[in-house]
């Protein structure tokens, strides 16, 4: 329907997560209207990110250097490791502003139905970090869903006795109405209640 280069661009864009063919067409036509420099800058940024970004040797967050900014920062508490599923999970924790420890990115969560077993995650690397010493507490911050919970239970079993293991609290979101909370969340909130 469109000239070959446009079709090719639409095909490539529609491979991106959350972008269907119609959205891909809209982006393609937007880029056609933009000056050549804008397209060149986007292309250069894409190539740059592929060439320069790799996984941190220690925590497996994204980094430009051998160690990421968190692992290089001597002001952060190296005795605390917060275990997350993906690098994107670090962002909300950092935005919260209360955590000053390090991270460990597993690269996913255990999911037998999807064929994700312990050897597919960076679990051994976490155990090696703990075994190397200096770690006082591991905070399990996997998602509060079935795969995240089973990953946390599995990790807690492996780490118990070696280091203090804690799990992120779960319950009612700040600003929400109790009336609209689901039963599972309310149950968790009651279990995790604290004294005032």
């Amino acid at each position, binding site marked *: 329907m469109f000239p070959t280069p446009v079709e090719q661009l639409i095909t490539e864009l529609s491979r991106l997560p959350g972008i269907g063919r119609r959205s891909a067409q809209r982006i393609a036509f937007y880029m056609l209207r933009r000056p050549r420099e804008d397209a060149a800058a986007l292309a250069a940024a894409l190539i740059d990110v592929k060439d320069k970004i790799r996984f941190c040797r220690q925590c497996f967050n994204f980094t430009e250097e051998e160690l990421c900014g968190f692992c290089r920062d001597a002001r952060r508490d190296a005795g605390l490791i917060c275990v997350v599923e993906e690098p994107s999970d670090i962002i909300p924790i950092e935005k919260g502003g209360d955590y000053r420890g390090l991270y460990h990115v597993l690269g996913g969560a255990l999911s037998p*139905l999807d064929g994700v077993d312990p050897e597919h995650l960076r679990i051994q690397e976490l155990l090696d970090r703990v075994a190397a010493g200096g770690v006082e507490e591991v905070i399990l911050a996997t998602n509060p*869903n079935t795969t995240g919970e089973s990953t946390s239970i599995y990790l807690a079993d492996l780490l118990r006795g070696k280091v203090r293991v804690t799990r992120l609290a779960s319950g009612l979101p700040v600003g929400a109405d109790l009336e609209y*909370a*689901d039963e599972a969340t309310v149950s968790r909130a009651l279990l995790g209640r604290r004294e005032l």
Partner: protein
Amino acid sequence: MSRGYSTEAIVLGSHKLREADRVVNLFTSARGKTPTVVKGVRKVGSRFGGRLEPFTHLEVQLHEGRTLHTLTGADTVRTHAAIRGQPAALKAGLSFIDLLSRTGAELERRPRCFNLLVRFLDEMEKVVSAGTADGAGETGSAPGLHDGRSADDVDGAAGVNRPAVLALGAELKLLLLSGYLPHLSSCAHCGSEESLPRFSAMAGGALCADCPGESFPVSAAALEAMRFLLESPLAAAAGRRLDAAAERETWRAVREVCRYHLGFDPRVAPV
């Protein structure tokens, strides 16, 4: 004409869609497997939130779309949270859900399968509660999902992996409802009721020593257990004592039937 309707549903699983949505695989009493879009469910403030975790029994309001349905309302009937908190029960539950979600077509009404699923989850919750009361199945200390420990370890006192036996019972019943009941009392080839030392999915069940067919050895105890699990209510299956070897043979028979007749390899073993 309104295309909205209400039905009971069990959550089988889900995958991410776009920024904050999910496609949740529901098994409904009205339409069987029903892939359903749930908008904004990955946001912290979603009103559906924890209601859409696997095994949750819901009363849902759905809007029928061209390809996918959309969830417009959900009330919890039972959360079955205990099953998700006990690794052996979670593994057994996922095993049954895997088989159920890979048999039958989407939007094919299967009321008997829905009833089987509801009863299976209710019984599994009882098994987990009983195990926790005994101290055998406490969250965080029970073996099962990924640790490679044997089935016998799951309930050491009784020597029985009760979630696995319950799942095997439900899976055999599912094969029966799907039209793939294996011959277990006589040779699937010649009909002899003498010794039946082998099982062949290709032949359609147990085989005597003389009949041809690709097969694996099966013990009399495993055949007896399979017959019991098929003929008894699920509540009785959960109480059945089954040694680890018979469990493995029963699972292998289920797996071979799935491979040969249904064309898929089960992804999660309950044992």
